[in-house]
Every structure is written in C-alpha cells, then in structure tokens.
C-alpha cells in the first residue's frame, strides 16, 4: 500500500508516460495560459508572446517541460527543511516521532528503523531491491516535547543527520513540527545506492511525508484510494 500511494503521488506514474514531468492540473492551466499568450501575440504581432504561448501550449499538450527537466537533474547531496502544523499537543506529536520505528510509516525513503537502545538505531533505506543501503544512527541531543537530533555513526555508507523541533502554537491545541534532514555521500562520492536515495529525498516528497505524518498523528491513518474499484473500459 505504501508503494502504491507514492506512485499515485507522482504525476508521471499516474499517466504512465515517463517523459511527463508536468502535473495534470498544471497542464490544464498551461493550455489556458498558452491560448491567452497566443491571442495576445496575434493582437500585438509580438514574437516573444508567440514563442511563450507556443511553449505553454507545448508543455500543456505533451506534459513535458524542459525547464523542470533541467532543474530536477540530481545534485550530490540533499538538505531539506520543512514545517507542518499538527493539531495535537506537543507531547503526543513528540512521542510519535521519538519512537523512531514509526518513521517508515510516513518517511517514504525508509524501509525500516530498528531501535537498538535508548540512543542508537539501525536504519534501512527504501531503494530498489537489488541494492542495499543501511546505517546506524545515534541520538545526539534530545529535549522532551521540544526537539530531537540524530546523526549516522562515523564511517557509515551515507552521512545522514536529522533534527526535528516541536513548537506549541499559541492559543491552539496544535504543534508546529520543523524537520531538517541531510544526506551526503561519504567523502563526496555517491555510489549507485546512495544516488538512488538522494534522488528520492526531494522537497515535494518531504512535504508529502510530513503531510502523512500529520494524518497519522491526527486521524490515526493515512488517506488512500489504492486498491479501490474503477471501470476498465479504456484502461
């Protein structure tokens, strides 16, 4: 179920065509914007408007945006910071996170986390089965109901560090959760497994992962439609 949901979240997979990197909603609006620009180009006899309109129509019609493609080309390390508000008191939110074995329930790039003792844990990345990437991490700083920091042990196959901060929202029974995660290849050289992991930890995915954390904390489950019936006429 986990896997199928992350597929449902990718516009490319949803439409089954790998070159598509523009979401269905955005394509709709690209078409509209293209039509507006072309109309303006005709009125003003403007070449830049004509080119812009053509480009919008192209990305709307094909679902492929060369600019996105260029932006998404991989870097050698990732550091991502994201915040979400959870409508639960800080102690409840903190304890859900403090049990590190819960992390794979919402962190889509993790297969499992096994707690070894109060400070140490063993992490396994969720990457294609032919590859294996795992490491041990240690909690370096912990302030109950306020913050938690951890990092991978020296000489691991990947350099990983994470921190999460819990701040009560004044006047509301809610908690702001700020997460900072970083992954770096050891000595700056990324093998295939590390590269795979780095490419899966994206801003978009982190936002989705935190949304999932919030759903679990608030509603007790993540919303899904994976496995529901649908017509088959054109599938």
């Amino acid at each position, binding site marked *: *179920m986990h896997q199928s*949901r992350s597929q*449902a*979240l990718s516009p490319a997979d*949803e439409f089954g065509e790998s070159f598509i990197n523009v*979401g*269905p*909603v*955005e394509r*709709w*609006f690209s*078409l*509209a914007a293209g*039509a*507006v620009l072309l*109309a303006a180009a005709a009125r003003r006899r403007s070449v830049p408007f004509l080119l812009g309109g053509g480009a919008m129509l192209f990305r709307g019609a094909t679902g492929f945006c060369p600019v996105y493609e260029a932006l998404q080309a991989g870097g050698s390390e990732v550091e991502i910071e994201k915040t979400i*508000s959870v*409508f639960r008191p800080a102690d409840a939110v903190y304890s859900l996170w403090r049990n590190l074995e819960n992390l794979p329930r919402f962190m889509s790039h993790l297969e499992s986390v096994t707690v070894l003792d109060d400070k140490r844990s063993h992490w396994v990345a969720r990457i294609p089965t032919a590859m294996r990437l795992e490491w041990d991490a240690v909690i370096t700083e912990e302030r109950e109901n306020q913050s938690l920091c951890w990092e991978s042990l020296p000489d691991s196959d990947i350099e990983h560090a994470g921190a999460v901060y819990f701040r009560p929202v004044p006047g*509301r029974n*809610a908690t702001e959760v700020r997460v900072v995660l970083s992954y770096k290849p050891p000595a700056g050289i990324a093998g295939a497994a590390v590269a795979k992991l780095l490419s899966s930890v994206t801003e*978009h995915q982190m*936002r*989705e992962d935190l*949304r999932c954390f*919030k*759903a679990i904390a*608030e*509603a*007790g*489950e*993540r*919303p*899904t*439609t*994976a*496995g*529901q*019936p*649908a*017509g*088959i*006429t*054109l*599938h």
Partner: protein
Amino acid sequence: MRAVCWNGRKDVRVETVDDPRLLNPRDAIIATELTAICGSDLHLYNGNIPTMQAGDILGHEFIGRVVEVGPEIDTLKPGDRVAVPFPIACGRCFYCSRGAYSFCDNSNPNAWMAEKVYGYSPAGLFGYSHMLGGYAGGQAEYVRVPYADVGPVKVPPELSAEQLLFLTDIFPTGFQAAENCCIQPGDIVAVWGCGPVGQFAVRSAFLLGADRVIAIDSVPERLEMARVQGGTEILNEDDVGDVTEALRDLTGGRGPDACIDAVGMEAHGHGLEGLLDSAKYKFMLQNDRPIALRQAINACRKGGTVSIPGVYGGFIDKFPIGAAFGKGLTFKMGQTHVQKYMRPLLERIEKGEIDPSFIVTHRMPLDEAARAYEMFNNKEDGCIKVVLKP
C-alpha cells in the same frame, strides 16, 4: 458490482467492476439503497473539472446499509441504515474540530494537486476528480466510506429513501447557502438558479426567517416548482430582460438583502455578455462562466451578502470587483460542511417542517444512468432531479 463510470466528456457507462473493500481501519462498506445525480456531476459530465480519469466511479449522494466496518469503527454495525455526507472528513483536524468539515486537512490523498491550483487543499469528495481525492463514488451498488465514525448518520426506517437521500448534499448545501446570508427579520433573499440546490436554498431561506424570497431562472417548470412549493416570487430571465432592474422594482428600489448564486460555473448567458463568455470559455480564456454571479453582485443592496453554493473550479473574467467594493458586499462561499447539518436537518424532516422528496422528478434504475445523465443535462422532460436505484 455495477457502477457508473466516467469515460470522457458526455460519456458515462454502467460497468461491472470489483466490489470495494476496506482499505483503512476507520472505513466502512455501504450497500447503496438509493443514489442521485447532482447538478455538480454535470460539471464532470461536460468535462469542466480537470483531473478526471477514464474509469472513475461517479456519485456523491447516496444512502444505504452498512455491510462491513473496519476495526476502529464501533459507532456503526452491519445492517445500520445510514446517509453519507459527500465531503470526506477525518473529524479530528483543526478544521473538522471547528465544524468546517469540507476543509478537512487529512482526507485528500492527492492534496498536492489541489494545492497547485488553490494554495491549500479542501477535503476529498466522493466521485469528484483526482484533484479532490480520486475516491470512488456512490453511483454504485457498494461504496467504501472512509472515517465512518464521522460521516455516516443513522437514519430512521419510518422515513423513505427519497425523504432522506438529500441530507447527503443538496438540502444542507441549500441550507448553508441561506445560513450564510445571515437572514434578519424583514430580509428579502434572491436566488439565482432553480435547480435542486436553488430549490433547497429557497425553502431554507424561508425556514431561517426570510420575509420574501425571489427565485430567478429561465426554465418554466423549475420556476413553477420554486413557486408552488416554496411560496416564492419568481422572475423569468427571458421575460424581464434586465434582472437587476426587475429586482429593484420588486424590492421597493432597495435591492435584495442577500443574493444566492445557485448556478455556478456553467451559467447560460443572454445577449452579448452570454455570447462573449461562451466564446472565451470555448477558447479556454476562462473556464468558469460567471453570468449569474455578476448579476447577483450588481443586484445586491449596499452592505448585502452574496452567498455562492454554485460550484466554481477555476478562473473567471470580468469579475465586478468595483461594484462589490463600492457596495461593501460580504461574500460567503465554498463546499458544504454537510456533517455539521445532517442531524439538525434530519430533525426538521422528522418534525415535518420540510419533505425533501418534492425535488424528485425522475426515478430510474442504476443501469440506465447514461440516459439519466443525458436527460438531466439537457433538462429534457422537465428533469430537475433523477434518483437511481441499484
């Protein structure tokens, strides 16, 4: 099971698909007793809502019996007869805790899609595009209902399915539209659109104490339904020409205190304005046609309220913000927080204050859904509301 599947613009088919199963601990499976086609389903039918996919099961108005519940559900048991609200809501987030169920933070698995267009995502809905959750809908023999401890309300056996069915959407939607008008004694409320939501908005305005209600449409049988059963004054757009002027005359030169746009994105315009809007829509220069909304804004009295239960999905052109600003209008809009209204409105039905079954004009088997959609869309044979029996 049999289910009504969307396959493209003006192409719905009744197909045999897999039965739904429980996917989450708070789910229930409902066997549909009666379902209906909503006016907002016609926006899907006409291809005006993005992110639909071929094979999507339609429908968000349905009542039925519980056949199975997930391990977390102890408020329902198999055999219970329930009405199910069309927005899907977790009941525990910031918005749900304030009764704003249609803004639920957690029920849309595709929230990122809606965020791209709206900034933040509203709740997931049954059978209403992938941007709003991609949930299989209720025009089917069985439906999976998430958060079954929050949405479904048990309904009494004495009341008929047709009396109860509209608790799931159009009655609360018309009621919320009227409630959003903050009706004071002596108020005159004008309602654009005498489709099902407009009909319930008219009656709800009376229930909430409006002194007079004026219903506006161009379809004679719809106006007749509003008048005969609502004690309403009616205005046929085709006869009066300038609606604002006609309303001025009807309201002693003041204008209505509140205006309800129960038409939404597919308004049929008249004259040059209607022609221009249709052309812009066809060339994708706007995707919603706001003719009723513009009229409502222009006709409303100074300091009045414009309440919008009609569905809008994207962008509109020539929004008269100057008139809205100049008259200091208040705007209230959005999907209905159905969960908040179901029990109080069920009480009103039980007390006999209203019998929602007046709205039904056509009864058809689920297998004839394709014909039913066509008939409703073309307003053939006086069609105002079709119910479908699985």
